[in-house]
């Protein structure tokens, strides 16, 4: 019995969220006195897979089937189910990403497993129960969930576990062939269209985020947000009304009806702090609010605040970051 970890790769590198997942899986394995094996999906390089040893992974399985480079729901599901069978894995850990969560729900039916998505902590395994803590009510609460099935699947929320780096440790990379057939690729995408991200930082993966609301007045002022984001190597986000009127793309919309994020730092510029917005960001480790209204509700949820005009404050912050670097 081992723990199987699903590792997503892109352009040869293991995604940051998958380093967190690998760490999580290795720690669960240690709790249970077993080892963690990874199955890699996407475009991976041998060297980056071997480096998963740093997160505590013993062995990495990698199927070189070229059609597995892009996400295909059915094929990924079968690949992972086959790996789980070979490794006799009772626990599968994935990222709570659009790939991980989609595959996780399919696998849970195939393998008759208990599934928890949006998991934020290592499991508690005392007293014969297996309990995970997960985010619920769109960031407004947590729930402890008992996974009562013999098999368990856990999708770990991004940025909730710190990736471990045990420099120099390597994992064994083993060839693996799930013998996928053409039929498994029937739901392959016709086309994949990637969008350019500010400074190349993907919002769901970002450790630092600079976000703008209606107080930014219009899309022509977003360079102020982007300049600070670039200086910090941060991702950019926005409030719902901003994406509703197309000042910014929809994938930047955070909140109860957008995405929930938990970066180390969230800087809110000209955002009032409505309850639906806060839900999406209140698990950020540090929150900074810049708003000209001292009564803005966001200040109640903030660690640091500046009562002031964004058009005056943002350039000063960008200059201060550049001066530091």
């Amino acid at each position, binding site marked *: 019995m081992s723990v199987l970890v699903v590792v997503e790769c892109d352009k040869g590198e293991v995604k940051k969220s998958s380093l967190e997942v690998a760490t999580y899986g290795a720690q669960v394995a240690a709790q249970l006195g077993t080892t963690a094996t990874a199955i890699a999906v996407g475009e991976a390089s041998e060297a980056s897979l071997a480096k998963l040893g740093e997160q505590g992974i013993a062995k990495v399985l990698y199927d070189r089937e070229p059609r597995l480079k892009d*996400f295909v*729901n*059915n094929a990924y599901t079968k690949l992972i189910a086959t790996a789980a069978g070979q490794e006799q894995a009772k626990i599968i850990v994935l990222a709570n*990403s*659009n790939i991980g*969560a989609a595959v*996780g*729900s*399919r696998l*849970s*039916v195939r393998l008759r497993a*208990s*599934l*928890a*998505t*949006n998991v934020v902590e290592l499991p508690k395994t005392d007293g014969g*129960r297996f309990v995970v*803590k997960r*985010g619920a*009510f769109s*960031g*407004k*609460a*947590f*729930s*402890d969930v*008992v996974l*009562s*099935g013999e098999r368990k699947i856990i999708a770990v929320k991004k940025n909730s576990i710190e990736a471990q780096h045990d420099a120099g440790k390597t994992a064994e990379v083993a060839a693996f062939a799930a013998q996928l057939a053409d039929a498994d690729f029937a739901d392959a*995408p*016709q*086309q994949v269209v*990637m*969008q350019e*991200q500010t400074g190349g930082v*993907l919002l*769901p993966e970002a450790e*630092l985020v600079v976000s703008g609301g209606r107080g930014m007045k219009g899309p022509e002022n977003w360079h102020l947000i982007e300049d600070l984001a670039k200086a910090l190597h941060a991702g950019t986000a926005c409030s719902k009304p901003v*994406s509703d009127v197309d000042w910014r793309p*929809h994938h930047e919309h955070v909140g*109860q*009806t957008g995405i*929930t994020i938990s970066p180390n*730092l969230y800087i809110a510029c000209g955002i009032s702090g409505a*309850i639906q917005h806060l*839900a999406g960001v209140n*698990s950020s480790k*540090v929150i*900074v609010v810049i708003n000209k209204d001292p009564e803005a509700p966001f200040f*109640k949820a903030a*660690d*640091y605040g*500046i009562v*002031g*005009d964004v058009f*005056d404050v943002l350039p000063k*912050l960008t200059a*201060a970051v550049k*001066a*530091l670097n």
Partner: protein
Amino acid sequence: MKFLVCISNVPDTTTKISFTPDNKEFNKAGVQFVINPWDEYALTRAIELKEAAGSGTVTVLNVGEADTEPNIRKALAIGADDAIRVNAAPQDAYFVAEQIAAVAKEGAYDVILMGKESIDYNGFQVHGMVGVLLGIPTVAPAMKLDLAGNTATLEREIEGGKEIVQVNTPFVASCQQPMCEPRIPNMRGIMTARTKPLKVVPAVGEPARTQVAEFALPPKKQGVKLIDAENAGELIKLLRNEAKVI
């Protein structure tokens, strides 16, 4: 084309979440329930596609107890033709998926639409499970959905971009913005909704595989430290030296 739209009954987005004193249950007292905001995209898009085709039916489905009926009626008022309620407290995502799969099979629906995820349990699970249970494709989360004959073209959101996916009916898709502009009921809709059929059916399937042991609220913030706007650069120093996040 027969559309099945699955709607979840969730606390209004302005709800301050609280739990019973033992933290074992969500405190429903005084809470207003709404149709899950993402499910409104599924419902409106189904109605639009039916209207564009000039034929077809839109059935709404909820797994829930009788207290969800006001929101089922609301969905009928928005424009669904009929409704089914599986009479059971939804225990977990798998339980709900089993109910939906059973109804979908029985009614031979062509297009099964859901929201991206419920805003209460945030599972992002039910659509994938239903697809496997029925042996049909699931596209989740979809930002765009068009139909030409039996072939649907969808845009699926991926981190950093999108995929264009084509599938044939029957299929499952979970919907999110900017798929359409969710409709609100009008007076005529509200009047006709009262007489539209709402069928109540019993639950089927196996016991749930997960159980909530306890709920918790996030820790409270310590209070905000204010920095003078004149001296904004000071914030960056604090973020580096005190908060240690940059």
